[in-house]
């Protein structure tokens, strides 16, 4: 009997596979394992792709392919004139996913929204430490802990956030992964059952796909959420085949073991482009790599020295050699796809003779310096050591001796924040929410000194522009302010801006409807697959 049942089940599976009712399955060769399925405690894009982008939704969303904010779980919102109150009207009738481990009894309401933020910001919330030691890096990192004064329920479908001070990027913060809305009902149920840790393993959201199973380090399975409030996904099943090696991902794509993959190795790109069964999408990444001088240490406190070094380095040669064409030379601290990018700015020309002269004018001779090269690959920088070597050679041409140093990644990140640091640091940034404030304020503001401002640079005029821009929600006005800020940045040259890298996404010709996100996230809700 058992055997017969098994055979019946097996033949049913085969019939499904072979028959006309075949479910549409998209296999995505993802680059790594998610750290968990609750987006709030994590900061890695790999984790967000597997959790917030598939399973969850947010109050506001980034329109596909842009960083423009559109309604998500909030169908509309108003901002008070003083910029302190944000009132969100929630979409009625939004259902949390029904799975074999949870059946919701009510629709999304204001309690869920309040809970989603309160559990991160309020240490007294019983769910704050639902697993011991958990922390909410993005919530704190984006400054929401000091930004939000209160969150109140106006009625079941209306939530009001009150801020301590006006902060225009706040709205964009709410589109970020950590701001995904979770179910309070589900959290309460788990808490009551003493299984709170399952919140991170068996996720429940309102997103386009719902969680089916995760086989650690191997496969994540999702199916389309039948109750999704937005346009229903075209595919029935979504599978993440975790494949950490880029060359192996490319082989799997070619063998149709998956239909789409991120982060091809630069060396594979030409081959993948030439494959007639594949399509290669590409777009400039929302990132920047830079060499940050320590502007508080002589002689780098002299703008002429920084300018001279900038002119001595041939950035195009770096792009050609290190990026093999998969990047563009950067002239501004923000990438060209970002609003307020000031294209009128002229980059410092590559001119070793002028550089030499400028150094002489600054009274600097026989300069010895250090260049810090990161020990790891990052999306904005495939090989920092090689980049540093090219810089070293260029600097030698103007009589500057540069030594290359490196540390273990964690140490590198820490030591590079030191105000008295000796040497210029290669580092970079990938945008979180598409707001220029997320680049300029994080990386170049006065209060970032000793932290994420690796140039240790504080310019009062620049800072005043940033502060003014953050305090107004008028985008046209903000654009003007950020454009001016970029002019000051270029004149003062706290960095050598190196590059903005290009992001590639190879996929099978059968895949349609995929849109690349400038934020680097991977979203399959609009993807279809043809046979």
């Amino acid at each position, binding site marked *: 009997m058992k*055997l017969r049942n*098994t*055979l019946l*089940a*097996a*033949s049913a*599976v*085969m019939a499904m*596979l072979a028959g006309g009712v075949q479910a549409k*399955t998209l*296999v995505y060769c993802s680059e*790594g*394992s998610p*750290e*968990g399925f609750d987006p709030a405690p994590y*900061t890695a894009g790999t984790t967000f792709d597997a959790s917030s982008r598939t399973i969850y939704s947010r109050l506001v969303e980034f329109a596909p392919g842009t960083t423009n904010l559109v309604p998500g779980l909030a169908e509309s919102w108003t901002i008070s004139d003083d910029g302190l109150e944000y009132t969100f009207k929630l979409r009625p009738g939004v259902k949390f996913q029904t799975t074999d481990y949870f059946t919701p009894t009510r629709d999304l309401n204001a309690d869920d929204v309040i809970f989603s933020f309160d559990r991160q910001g309020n240490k007294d919330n019983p769910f704050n430490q639902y*697993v*011991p*030691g*958990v*922390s909410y*890096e993005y919530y*704190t*990192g984006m400054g929401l802990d000091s930004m939000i004064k209160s969150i109140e329920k106006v009625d079941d479908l209306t939530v009001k956030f009150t801020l301590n001070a006006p902060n225009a990027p706040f709205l964009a913060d709410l589109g970020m992964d950590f701001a995904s809305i979770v179910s309070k009902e589900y959290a309460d149920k788990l808490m009551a059952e003493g299984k709170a*840790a399952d919140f*991170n*393993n068996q996720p429940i959201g309102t997103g386009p796909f719902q969680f089916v*199973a995760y*086989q*650690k*380090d*191997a*496969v994540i*399975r999702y199916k389309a959420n039948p109750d999704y409030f937005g346009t229903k996904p075209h595919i029935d099943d979504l*599978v993440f*085949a*975790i*494949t*950490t*090696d880029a*060359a*192996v991902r490319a*082989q*799997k794509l*070619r*063998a149709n*073991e998956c239909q789409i993959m991120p982060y091809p190795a630069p060396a594979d790109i030409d081959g993948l482009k030439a494959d007639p069964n594949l399509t290669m999408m590409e777009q400039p990444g929302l990132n920047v790599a830079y060499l940050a001088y320590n502007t508080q240490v002589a002689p780098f406190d002299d703008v002429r020295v920084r300018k001279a070094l900038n002119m001595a380095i041939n950035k195009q040669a770096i792009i050609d050699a290190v990026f093999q064409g998969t990047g563009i030379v950067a002239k501004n601290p923000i990438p060209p796809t970002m609003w307020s990018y000031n294209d009128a700015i002229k980059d410092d020309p590559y001119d070793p003779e002028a550089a030499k002269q400028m150094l002489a004018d600054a009274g600097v001779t026989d300069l010895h310096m250090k260049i810090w090269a990161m020990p790891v690959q990052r999306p904005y920088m495939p090989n920092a050591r090689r980049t540093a070597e090219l810089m070293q050679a260029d600097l030698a041409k103007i009589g500057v001796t540069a030594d290359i140093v490196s*540390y*273990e*990644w*964690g*140490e590198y*990140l*820490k030591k590079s*924040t030191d105000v008295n640091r000796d040497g210029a640091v290669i*580092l970079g*940034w990938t945008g979180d929410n598409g707001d220029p404030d997320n680049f300029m304020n*994080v990386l170049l503001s006065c209060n970032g000194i000793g*932290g*994420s401002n690796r140039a240790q640079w504080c310019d009062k005029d620049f800072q005043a522009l940033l502060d003014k821009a953050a305090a107004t929600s008028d985008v046209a006005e903000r654009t003007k302010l950020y454009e001016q800020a970029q002019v000051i940045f270029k004149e003062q040259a706290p960095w050598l801006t190196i590059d903005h890298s290009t992001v590639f996404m190879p996929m099978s010709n059968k895949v349609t409807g995929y849109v690349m996100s400038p934020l680097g996230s991977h979203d399959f809700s609009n993807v279809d697959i043809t046979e």
Partner: protein
Amino acid sequence: MIKFILGRLSYLIPTFIGITIVAFGFVRILPGDPVLLMAGERGMTPEHYADMMQRLGFDRPIWQQYLEYLWKLLHGNFGDSIVTKQPVLSDFLTLFPATLELAFCAIIIAVVIGVPVGVLAALKRGSWFDQTTMTAALVGYSMPIFWWGLLLIIFFSGILGWTPVSGRISLLYYFPTPTGFMLIDSLLSGQKGAFASAASHLVLPSIVLATIPLAVIARQTRSAMLEVLGEDYVRTARAKGLSPRRVVGVHALRNAMIPVITTIGLQVGVLMAGAILTETIFSWPGIGKWMVDSISRRDYPVVQSGLLLIAGIVMIVNLVVDLLYGLINPRIRHS
């Protein structure tokens, strides 16, 4: 024999304590810490850093952390991952069958091919067979695993299309995995073609992982055989008119196997090291890949307990090898 076993077991306790110290100390000696890595390019304020270190218990004196770790271990608590928040032991138990399945297939390949090749090479010393296989073994021994794996994938999966590229089974199959051994679970699932799919996924990674042990075993068997074949008792056996098959198969091989079994036992450690690279290339969800990820994230609890568990297994294998010795060679038992 019981005294012999007890004697061997008594070595395990100091070894165990030694390993906990090494595993605990090793990952802490590495520069950097998990909190810094979590912060990334953004960095974090010193207050937040201190708060995090305190929450994770890393702010206390190291001896205190060690004693607490040991205390928990004695109660069967291997700790929780800082990153995934999952218990280390449950992750290990989930992933270990995958590594074991792969390592088992690899060691079978290595022994089934390595021993006969070694014996034949010894018997036909100096022949073309001897020279070719021993050169091949030398190449195999020095093979960069990562490159070799990729080469096989490109040739057999990419160009010929004979084997799947990576993973443990085709994604079309989806069934519960009660044992964690895909070959067994695929049979239990009753789904048609599942076993064949699981087996085909094992071929390339097993070959890659078997390469170095195969080379070592073949060379070791050859030299042990050569040594034994020159012994007086083998000459005596021949002189008294025993068939060559009996001389080689019983008298020579049995004695030659002693160093070979040692070698096979030692290869278990090599397999664990090889599994790290092999699993990474073939997206094989085993403990090798898990350890690499955890080391790069400085996930202290996973690294220290993972190392301990792996070392424990290697220790048990070595113990079994020791006991096997005793069975094969009574002299060892009595010494």
